[in-house]
């Protein structure tokens, strides 16, 4: 097993640091999967044992790294799966924003480690400063690899563009202070509604004029929970109730420079938030719906 890569461009380094920082906010631990083409960060729900991942992040190596070498487990299994404490990685990469180069490699020093060698210019002189971090990792044995397969997603009923994440985040954070669950309602007409309900009040925020990327046909509303808005065609509205905190956590990804964010909803089952950047990094967050 071998893994070694080098990053020398400021843009990707900043991006990489932001991505890891976002992941570290979402979860204490994450899995780094190294393949010949891509790096994957995978977060599984900590409490529920082997469940499908809640976060799936793909980083194409060609655009990020100037050098990239890896040798997998053996000829048949060409990947490497590492379990990392995401905060450790994030903290060590904080200085990357001002760094000149990053060398990342898999080493064995007392225990398996990801060694980060960061070269950064000194603020006071022309000299280069070399910082080395050894972050302990756990190499995941092959028998556990299947836990980190890409989740099979049911075909979403609707995929709608999200409003600017910062705006959405302030809204959600206000709502989160009042209630723990938020109902997301997306209509085929390009409306996204966030709604909470407390004993005292019902608060909803509507975003209009969003691009609908896909709509999978009429939705059947079987129960009384969805309140009809008289002038709307209910068959074109898809809803899902999710944990407000989880939703808000994903929105902290707004620090990653992105060019597309899409919210896909499987009616009453699942919300998939997907963020894509210019460098083709794809971060997907899966939030399962709460059904009473």
């Amino acid at each position, binding site marked *: 097993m071998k893994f070694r890569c080098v990053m020398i461009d400021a843009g990707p380094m900043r991006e990489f640091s932001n991505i890891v920082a976002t992941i570290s906010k979402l979860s204490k631990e994450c899995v780094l999967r190294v393949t010949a083409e891509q790096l994957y960060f995978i977060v599984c729900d900590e409490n529920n044992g082997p469940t499908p991942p809640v976060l799936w992040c793909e980083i194409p190596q060609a655009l990020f790294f100037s050098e990239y070498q890896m040798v997998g487990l053996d000829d048949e299994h060409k990947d490497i799966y590492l379990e990392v*404490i995401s905060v*450790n990685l994030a*903290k*060590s990469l904080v*200085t990357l924003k001002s760094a000149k180069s990053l060398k990342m490699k898999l080493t064995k*020093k*007392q*225990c398996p*480690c990801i060694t980060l060698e960061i070269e950064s210019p*000194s*603020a*006071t*002189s*022309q*000299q*280069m*400063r*070399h*910082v*080395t*971090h*050894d*972050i*302990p990792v*756990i190499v995941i044995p092959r028998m556990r690899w299947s836990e980190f397969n890409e989740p099979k997603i049911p075909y979403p009923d609707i995929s709608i563009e999200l409003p600017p994440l910062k705006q959405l985040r302030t809204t959600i954070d206000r709502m989160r202070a009042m209630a723990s669950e938020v109902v997301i309602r997306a209509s085929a007409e390009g409306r996204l509604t966030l709604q909470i309900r407390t004993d005292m009040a019902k608060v909803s925020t509507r975003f209009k004029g969003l691009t609908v990327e896909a709509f999978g046909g009429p939705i059947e509303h079987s129960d009384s929970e969805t309140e009809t808005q008289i002038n709307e065609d209910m068959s074109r509205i898809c809803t899902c109730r999710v944990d407000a905190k989880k939703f808000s956590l994903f929105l902290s990804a707004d620090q990653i420079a992105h060019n597309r964010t899409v919210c896909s909803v499987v009616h009453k089952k699942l919300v998939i938030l997907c963020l894509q950047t210019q460098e083709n990094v794809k971060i997907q967050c899966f939030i399962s719906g709460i059904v009473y």
Partner: protein
Amino acid sequence: MKCHVPGANVKVLGRTVHALARFGDELYLESLADCILLRTLNAAESAYAMVKFNKNFFSYFNYNYYSTDDNEGLKCKISMKSALNTFKSPTHMDKQVENLEIKLDAEACKLIFQLKCKHGIVKTHYVSILDSKAMQAVYTKDSVPNRITSPQRILSEALSNFQQSDDQVTLEATEQSLVLRNYVDLNIEFTKVIRSQITLKPAEFDSYTIGEETTITFTLKEFKALLGFAEALNLPLQLHFETTGRPAVFIVHNGSTFEAHFVLATSKPDSATQATSTQNTTKAERSKRKDKSVQDSVRKKPHLETDTSKCLDEDSHLFNFIDIPEDENIPTENGNDTKLNNVRNTIDDINCVDITNNSQAMDCDNIPPSPTSKKIIKSIFKRCFESTFDPRAIQGVVLVENSDSE
């Protein structure tokens, strides 16, 4: 003693008190004929700080204000908390305070700080004097082989690469580079800790002299405090150090009005690597080394002298190497808790075990170290395993002095 501190210098004094507060819980103030000294010592007696304010730091300085015959100089000990209260926000102090008057009477039981602020506001702090003794550590800073003068920012920038949870730093000084490393305690599971290392080139420093290449380990908490002090006052930091086990002295001064010395005890590097290296040495070498270390400890003893006052008793171990604790029974007070005695006994036991282990290792080279319960023992008796630990420090602490002086 009575003195006036002008507004701009109040900020410096405030910063000083805040830096010292990160070291110890008590502040010793001593007034001499031409200067005022502030000192503190941390609870573990591994870090000491002394700041000297010369006469010209003050706008008015009368050492003999209360006209006593005593020429020894006034000394007092106050609690750090009350000192901090007086200097609550050093950043804004220079804007609010116009003048600070400090008064210390040999007869009084209060130290008086009077802050004359803008708009005629006068704040007076009467700080209780806990003791009228002073304390002093003796250390060498002039005849050391290794000296580095660093611009204030460089080291704190370097430390920003470490994690918040790191508590000790190892400094490896060679002629080519200065390597800072976070010190990883052996007791902590190494699969959890990030090991970081920063290499600084000598060119980054104002001056860089390494006469004797060495590796020293000291605490980060106090180091950060003194770096913050140097940074706040925008003054360069001088590092004076010898080898492992000898104190490292950090000096911040502005040349004329004040000089601050921060002294940190340094400990041996990783005891594991040491242990493996000692296993291979021959008997003769070992006994030689033992002799040497005994000599060392004898020689180093006067290294720290106590002042006329006995604030640090003879058994103070500040910055000294204590190899094997002597089997002496410290006279305990009658009313002593039996529990406490028990604890002491266990500590003694452990030390004994340690010693026997050593002697076993001397006889035969390949005996593996005796198994120690990794977690519990080490966390409870952690300090016993530290190389510079002296059990007498625990026994020697006198919480209440004998009221009867027999």
